[in-house]
């Protein structure tokens, strides 16, 4: 058996990398593990069709990316109902004359400190979970993973303008949620 057809070698070489890739996109350990599992099974079945024009890692990542896209689209479809309530989502933050409902507070902090602040990360996680599904996925892919606009639009099946609207709504809701938990609230 050559190295390339040894599944144990595959899993030990790329298992952790693929798991981290999936986890940062779906934010759930069980789902991430399932997606990686499906990826290896599909890759193993199709191993004879691998021509070696890309690296094995790129090939596996490509398969995983498809699985993640399927998962995200499925989640978004399943939560259609939640989205219908989402028609005029800037109204909670602005009055009829387009001014802020509540004054925005200054948030004095540094990215370095916040990134290492466990309390901030837990709060952010819970604030993210309160977002409507589509806003959450788009925000995570774009802002946390730094995926390109084009990639995110393809994965979530939306236009660029849609993406900008969803990011805008997600940021308004997150800023409000973080402020209500004391991050950048008036002291």
């Amino acid at each position, binding site marked *: 058996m050559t190295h390339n057809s040894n*599944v*144990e070698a595959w*899993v030990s070489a790329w*298992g*952790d990398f*693929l*798991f*981290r890739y999936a*986890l*940062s996109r779906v934010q759930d*350990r069980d789902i991430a*593990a399932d997606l*990686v*599992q499906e990826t*290896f*099974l599909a890759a*193993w*079945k199709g191993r004879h069709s691998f021509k070696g024009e890309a690296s094995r890692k790129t090939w596996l990542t490509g398969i995983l990316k498809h699985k993640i896209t399927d998962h995200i689209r499925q989640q978004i479809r399943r939560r259609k109902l939640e989205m219908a309530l989402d028609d005029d989502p*800037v109204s909670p*933050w*602005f009055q009829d*004359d*387009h*001014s*802020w409902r509540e*004054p*925005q*507070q*200054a*948030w004095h*902090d*540094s*990215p*370095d400190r*916040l*990134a*290492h602040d466990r309390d*901030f*990360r837990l709060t952010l996680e819970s604030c993210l979970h309160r977002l409507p599904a589509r806003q959450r996925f788009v925000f995570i892919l*774009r*802002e*946390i*993973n*730094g995926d390109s*606009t084009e990639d995110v639009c393809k994965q979530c099946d939306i236009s660029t303008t849609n*993406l*900008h609207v969803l*990011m*805008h709504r997600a*940021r*308004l809701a*997150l*800023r409000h949620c*973080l402020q209500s938990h004391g991050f*950048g609230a008036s002291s």
Partner: protein
Amino acid sequence: MNHFCQQASRLASDRLERRLSLKETLRLNIHCLICSSCRHYADALRLLHATLRKAHEVEPAQELPAATRQYIIRQCQEQPE
């Protein structure tokens, strides 16, 4: 009179997504000079943006669970050549 705040908040977000036109940049910056809410909001978005990029780098290393590892190996080895 309509306020510019709702539009300014959109521009503050868009600025992190695309290149604003010169006109858009000017409108946003001038508005932020006179409106503390929008200035604070725009600054907060920048702070959040920078923090999330950082947070991604300092994330602890995650390993594929051992049970999943074993399951994959077993399933693949059981498949006919």
